[in-house]
């Protein structure tokens, strides 16, 4: 493990709606203090007699380790299925069983280069905090947040607070530029000659961002979202075909080696496949 996650019972100190999403603020000792942008927490859902066994993963959207509650983290919940619906209906003072911080954070450039943040839907949740850190490091910051429709664009307010430019895209044109984040990305990148693009969102978006970054000679750091049963590296459900330093593709756990990867390492086209050159694929004849 690259850090020391803890399991703790957090207490909800606030829930607020923003568009389609619920932002839940949780007082939880031991997580806020060490977390960095790109890391995530997992939350047990459904209460004591829940039929849902698996924890749900959420990006840590921000931390406040000097609040009067002790360490506080925010998560942004998109209520899509039973677990996230349960979470979004929690109230102030309810308890949550949390594990975190988990995973590898976004790597921060040593030098003050130009950076672009690209967020799709709730994928934008962890980007404003990352942006703050980048600006503190003296990086130039341009943000592009998009979604299918206005209510699903996250982070407008947060981005404006942090600084740098902000471009919003929606597929239906209900807010900002009509289209996708990747439609505007090339222009934004070239304007300040971006060296690093950070992206979080659906896999097809990450794949497109990776391509654009490569075409522009930039590095892309992408935070992926694979279904995770454990989140702590013990179950092997969350793997992606990742090219290692020796050029060998391995089925790599995105919970502990990710969720942030250098996009050049990710074989996007081969996700959900088992290409024959993956390490150990030749032994898969039996089962």
């Amino acid at each position, binding site marked *: *493990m690259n850090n*020391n*996650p*803890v*399991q703790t019972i957090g207490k909800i100190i606030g829930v607020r709606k923003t568009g389609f999403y619920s932002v839940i603020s949780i007082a939880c000792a031991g997580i806020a203090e060490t977390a960095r942008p790109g890391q995530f927490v997992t939350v*047990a859902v459904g209460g004591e007699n829940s*039929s*849902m*066994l*698996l*924890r749900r993963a959420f990006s840590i959207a921000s931390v406040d380790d000097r609040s009067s509650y002790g360490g506080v983290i925010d998560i942004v919940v998109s209520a899509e299925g039973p677990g996230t619906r349960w979470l979004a209906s929690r109230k102030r003072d309810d308890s949550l*069983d949390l*594990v975190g911080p988990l995973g590898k954070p976004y790597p921060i450039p040593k030098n003050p280069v130009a950076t672009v943040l690209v967020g799709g839907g709730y994928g934008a949740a962890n980007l404003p905090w990352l942006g703050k850190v980048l600006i503190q490091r003296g990086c130039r910051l341009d943000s592009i947040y998009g979604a299918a429709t206005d209510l699903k664009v996250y982070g407008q307010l947060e981005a404006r607070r942090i600084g740098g430019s902000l471009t919003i895209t929606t597929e239906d044109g209900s807010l900002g530029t009509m289209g996708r984040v990747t439609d505007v990305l090339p222009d934004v990148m070239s304007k300040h000659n971006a060296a690093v693009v950070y992206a979080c969102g659906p896999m097809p978006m990450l794949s497109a961002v990776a391509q654009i970054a490569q075409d522009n000679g930039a590095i892309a750091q992408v935070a992926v979202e*694979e*279904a995770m*049963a*454990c*989140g*702590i*590296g*013990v*179950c*092997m*459900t*969350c*793997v*992606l075909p990742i090219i290692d330093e020796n050029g060998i593709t*391995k*089925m790599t756990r995105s919970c*502990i080696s990710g969720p942030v990867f250098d996009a050049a390492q990710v074989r996007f086209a081969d*996700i*959900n*496949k*088992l290409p024959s050159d*993956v*390490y*150990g*694929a*030749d*032994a*898969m*004849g*039996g*089962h």
Partner: protein
Amino acid sequence: MVGTSLRGSGPANAPIDSLLVDSSTQLGSVRIPAPVFTASGCAASGQGLDNFFDIAAIGGIVTKSIMLRARSGRATPRMAETPSGMLNGIGLQGPGIDDFLENDLAWLQARKVRTVVSIAGNTVEEYGRVARRLRELDWLTAVEVNISCPNVESRGQVFACDAAASAAAITEVRRALTSNTPVIAKLTADVTDIVGIARSVIDAGADGVAMINTLLAMSIDLDQMRPVLSGGTGGLSGPAIRPVAVRAIWQVHAEFPNLPILGMGGVRSGADALEMILAGASAVSVGTTIFNDPSAPWRIQRELREELGKRGFGKLTDAIGHAHTVFEASK
């Protein structure tokens, strides 16, 4: 139905402080200081859990089944959530026995963790080859033999579904190891007659059995309209299957009362662990619950001591199979 009065014939009735409960156990000739293990494939090789509790303080880590060669595992998706359970189709992803010895096992030994190595094979011979690589490791607590693998020499029929194939794999492993290393055969409940399979592996030299492995199952993705798992079918685990596991343990203990049984399948609490022990398990493994609660093995071990104490059991070993005694007396 029989009241608690009958318990007078068993262990003492008066509750005992849980700190005074001796929850050490035996797996055959081997004494195990603590009764809760991790289930194979649900703890990798233990590292990920060491953040949450002292992994040297539980019964032991049962490592993910290792095979001769490195395996990529299956394509994703590899899991689905189901009511009180989950489905997995990992495909035994692993680095192969050599890498495993060099890295995972070396780490476990250095960390002084009681370790049960789970092994698997595509052929009888392969089981033997993997086992031989463990022959010199006299510090191992046991070797668990995952026989829920397709036998490539028998049109992919799963070893554990056939008494003769199960026996052949166990014979080979038993021969490959020294008699100091207990061999535990891991059974599946996906069979018509689990007692018959147990008999065959005992005859083949197994020192104990572990059960149950996941049940063969499937979920369908209603958006994609195809099985969720890339491989189609997968293994069902978690509390959903616990009643099947308890039944299997009960049946095998009834037939072989002295056989050490490592019970597993949906254990989520100390009460669940006690249920398996009363049915005949000597120790339990915790699998899927770890994903829900990474501290679970440690918590369950504590809760189990409390449950034993509440019922006046001074020693865990007095509780093993105790429900059979009560049931017989009620007839």
